[in-house]
């Protein structure tokens, strides 16, 4: 028998409205017929809609990690509300009559099987996979263009610095935006985003004085990128056969979008990983002009905190699945890791959920870092690299979470080490103000997932709490 929870169904939905609509169909009793196959791996039924005839929808769990939704409705949303409704009807405990699997689903299954077989055959065939042909002239041309782009970028930045940030007016900002557009022609989408981020820092409506520090820092970052990028590209120009750099984030900075097959080639895959999401948030990134869904996950075996990132371009956001908080353990057959430092980005295509057990939470506690001195050292080590991620996330153990008379919040480790808790600019939502609402017992001998931020002007390193784990209770302060 199929075992799924309502929250798992929620996670399959493309957005909150789809959840509501799916549940609405069950509430309104729109399902005329509910069936399941003999083995229970296939749910199918008929749902009345605005059309003349009922929609026939089905959800096939023949590959449990990757349920297949099928429906005859014309909706562009996928999965549509009918498929989701069918699953909600199931989790609500409605009775599904056993019926033979419909003909068309059998044939569709066969086709899908054949596709998988063909693919497997290709992979397993004796002849070694053809090495990807690299068009050397094209590649050289691309690299030359990228180098040219770096020159353009450098020239702009240096001239900006010579005349000073104080002289940047709306006319200048327009000119910078023009450069942002130009960089697109030089295959430098990563640099393009960072330059736009710089321009946004100085855009109208912001407190300039407060932005200058960040703007200056952004310029230094771009400087570091230009230096490193140029050296890398030059070495590649010498040897076009040189493989992608899978040890640092330079490829991403240059605008490379890693493909899972590439990651696999470099051995950046873990098989049979188990992940528990500890925090999630989503924000609208003006510099990327995309919505970004970010999840922080603990990998059970290694104890590493990974990050899932989904970009949803504003224009396509309507048709893309919006990521969400996930409350179960994700059993992932293949976990792909991107190059990076702490909280490297991960991706997985297939996943099987299972309920969180006490053992999972005990494991979380055992993976928490108990010494802040050590944790801070690791963090600082990452921060000092100009191109690194400036807001690393860590799971810390806290002897207690307390407050000072002035209202500052702090984590204290077993050895008395301290860490100030404050809301940071990298996150869209504050959390420390929630701490006083928690029961005292939750704030002692607990694990806290925090995101760090270095306050350049004050010379302080602070952290924002994202989630508190105490015993069997996970309190998500963010999402």
């Amino acid at each position, binding site marked *: 028998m199929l075992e799924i929870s309502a929250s798992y169904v929620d996670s399959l939905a493309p957005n*909150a409205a789809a959840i509501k609509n799916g549940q609405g169909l069950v509430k309104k009793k729109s399902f005329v017929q509910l069936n399941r196959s003999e083995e229970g791996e296939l749910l199918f039924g008929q749902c009345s809609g605005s059309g003349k005839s009922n929609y026939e929808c089905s959800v096939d769990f023949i590959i449990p990690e990757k349920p297949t939704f099928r429906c005859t409705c014309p909706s562009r949303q996928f999965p549509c509300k009918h498929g989701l409704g069918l699953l909600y009807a199931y989790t609500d405990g409605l009775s599904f009559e056993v019926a033979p699997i419909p003909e068309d689903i059998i044939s569709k299954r066969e086709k899908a099987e054949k596709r998988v077989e063909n693919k497997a055959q290709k992979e397993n065939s004796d002849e070694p996979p053809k090495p990807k042909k690299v068009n050397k002239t094209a590649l050289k041309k691309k690299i030359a263009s990228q180098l040219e782009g770096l020159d353009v970028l450098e020239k702009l930045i240096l001239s900006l610095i*010579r005349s000073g940030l104080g002289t940047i007016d709306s006319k200048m900002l327009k000119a910078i935006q023009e450069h942002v557009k130009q960089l697109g022609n030089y295959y430098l989408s990563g640099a393009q985003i960072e330059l736009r981020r710089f321009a946004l820092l100085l855009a109208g409506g912001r407190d300039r004085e407060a932005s200058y520090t960040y703007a200056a820092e952004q310029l230094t970052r771009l400087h570091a990128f230009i230096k490193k990028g140029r050296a890398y590209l030059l070495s590649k120009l010498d040897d076009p056969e040189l493989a992608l750099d899978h040890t640092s984030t330079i490829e991403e900075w240059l605008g490379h979008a890693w493909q899972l097959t590439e990651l696999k080639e470099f051995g950046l895959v873990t098989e049979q990983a188990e992940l528990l999401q500890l925090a999630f948030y989503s924000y609208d990134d003006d510099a990327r002009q995309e919505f970004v869904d970010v999840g922080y996950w603990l990998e059970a075996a290694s104890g590493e905190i990974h990050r899932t990132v989904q970009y949803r371009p504003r224009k396509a956001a309507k048709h893309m699945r919006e990521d969400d908080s996930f409350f179960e353990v994700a059993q992932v057959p293949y976990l792909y890791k991107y190059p990076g430092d702490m909280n490297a980005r991960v991706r997985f295509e297939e996943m099987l959920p299972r309920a969180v057990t006490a053992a999972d939470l005990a494991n979380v506690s055992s993976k928490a870092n108990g010494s802040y001195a050590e944790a801070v050292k690791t963090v600082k080590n990452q921060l000092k690299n100009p191109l690194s991620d400036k807001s690393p996330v860590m799971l810390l153990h806290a002897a207690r979470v307390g407050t000072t*008379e002035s209202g500052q919040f702090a984590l204290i480790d077993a050895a008395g080490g301290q860490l100030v808790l404050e809301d940071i600019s990298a996150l869209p939502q504050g959390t420390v103000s929630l701490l006083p609402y928690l029961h005292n017992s939750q704030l002692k001998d607990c694990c806290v997932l925090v995101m760090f931020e270095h306050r350049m002007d004050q010379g302080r390193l602070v952290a924002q709490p994202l989630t508190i784990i105490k015993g069997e209770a996970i309190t998500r302060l963010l*999402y």
Partner: protein
Amino acid sequence: MSTALLQELHQEVRRLYIAGSDLAPGDFRLKRLQPQFQQLGERAAIFKRLGEGITALLESGEGTGTSVKLQELAMLLGSVLYTQGHTAVDGEVLDIAGGGIPLSTSYSYRKLAEVQKALSTTGSGRYEIVTDAFAEGLFNDLRLFPFAIRALDDPYSEMAEFAMDKILPSYGAAVVPYLIQCFNRSGGKSDVRKLRVIYKAGGAEELELIYDAAENGADEIRVAAIECLAVHEGYTDALIGWTLDKKKLIREAAYTALAAGASAQGIERLFAAFSGKDKELAAEALNRFPSEPLTERLIPLLRTELDQAPVNNKDEKASDKAWAKVQPFLRAFEYVRMPLLEALFYQIVREADRFTSLSWITLLDKAAQYLEQTNSTEVLSLLQELDNKNHRYLPYSFRMAKRLLPPEEVYMHYVGSTASKLKSVVTKASSARERQLLDTMEYMVVSYDYYNGEINTAAPLVEAWDARWLDWLIDRKHLELVAVFARPGHKRVEEFLLQSLEEWKEKKKSGLNTIGEHVFKGLEHAGVEEARRLKLLMEILEDSKDRSLYSFSVYLFHLMFHFPKSYADRLEAILPSYRYDCARQLEEIIGLLRK
């Protein structure tokens, strides 16, 4: 490592980024730092490198060199500073006080974000999101708790009130400490709301705080706090004290609270107020919270005032003054019903002549209004006597008679008796009286829904009213009422309705909805078969062509749905003569007929 020095350098570098690196060569403030770095450089390599960076920048020539050197220095300095962040707190770390609030964090981002956005932005559709979320139980999530508290400040007052009445009280007493934390007794509207929630959720536990707010808060807060203290006996003395406050607002609240609490002492104070300057305030309080025992004690006072009133209106000032004394009593008695009061009003009506000469019409209105609700025929005859004197009071007696007497007696009394008289002499007074009667009847049986352009008629009329009314109404050509009273098998009614329609057609051609509504409803009541009515309606539509009409009334529009299919072409032909919604309605009908 000297962090202060590094910070100082950071500030200088930041300054040069803002002012421009072209100013860096020879910059004296940068120059001043240089020796210190050189000195420290002898011990730590990193300071040496920074010192070299400073030198390079100071000595960089014209051109882009300055900016490159500044970038290099900033990059190196940044890396160093990133390793120098303090993590220490600013004092002794204490435990976080408070028992917490027992809420979970089990809802997902997608569900929470929508509500958080609704409660932190402005715009339409927010209220619905929040009420739905509340119904779904989303506010049991910790992360919405601060948003719920902040909702008390929401610029959309309905949202703030929903938070006050529903969301926050649902947390129970646990919410109280957090509200107290942010409660400001000198604050404004949102603090009033906080106070109300504190009282609602905290109850008797928080009376001291509420008392303090009532004593020392801003006016708005004091009023709300006084209201909260109304039913708590221990605070009666305090409430009595506030009735002596300098501010009228506070006295008003105090009197209202005393009336609501209805304690013996409170009643005594209200009674006393009736002989003081706060008569009106006490009267308003009693209007909201009527009190029988107090009414009983106030009736003799009113009686005395009435007895002492001037005999006529000669001295207008004196009579106005007397009236001002009487008015608060009437206000205080408005919602009380008791035999003593009935006796008082009965007596007032009996002395109608005296009060009429004082032009205290309102007094008689109030009395008649009260008496109308009683069930005694004796009272009815008194009221009928009153309306004989002045038709203004006819509605009271007529409604009462309608309620108490059999239909034929009502007809006989109000029409039968006057009808014969009317035939002979039509005086000004009698026609005004007739008008009054018709108006009263119209109020009783017809209600207008101006918003939807609908006219509702009260049914069933056949048993409730005497059959002779219809003829009487036709005689008076009262179309609205004839339409309501029309019944099948009455020959004159059909004639009259058709006649009315003809007259309308000849005269002006606007107001199609009103005439149509009356005539066609009347015809329906009169039992005229549908086919004929529809034919008539079609003719009217063809004849009217009222280009100023915005839309057909619901009744007429619904009638059109019954048109035979053959009318489609005729409707099409007149379509250009109608505009706005009318045209759309006709198109819809045409579409339906052709389907």
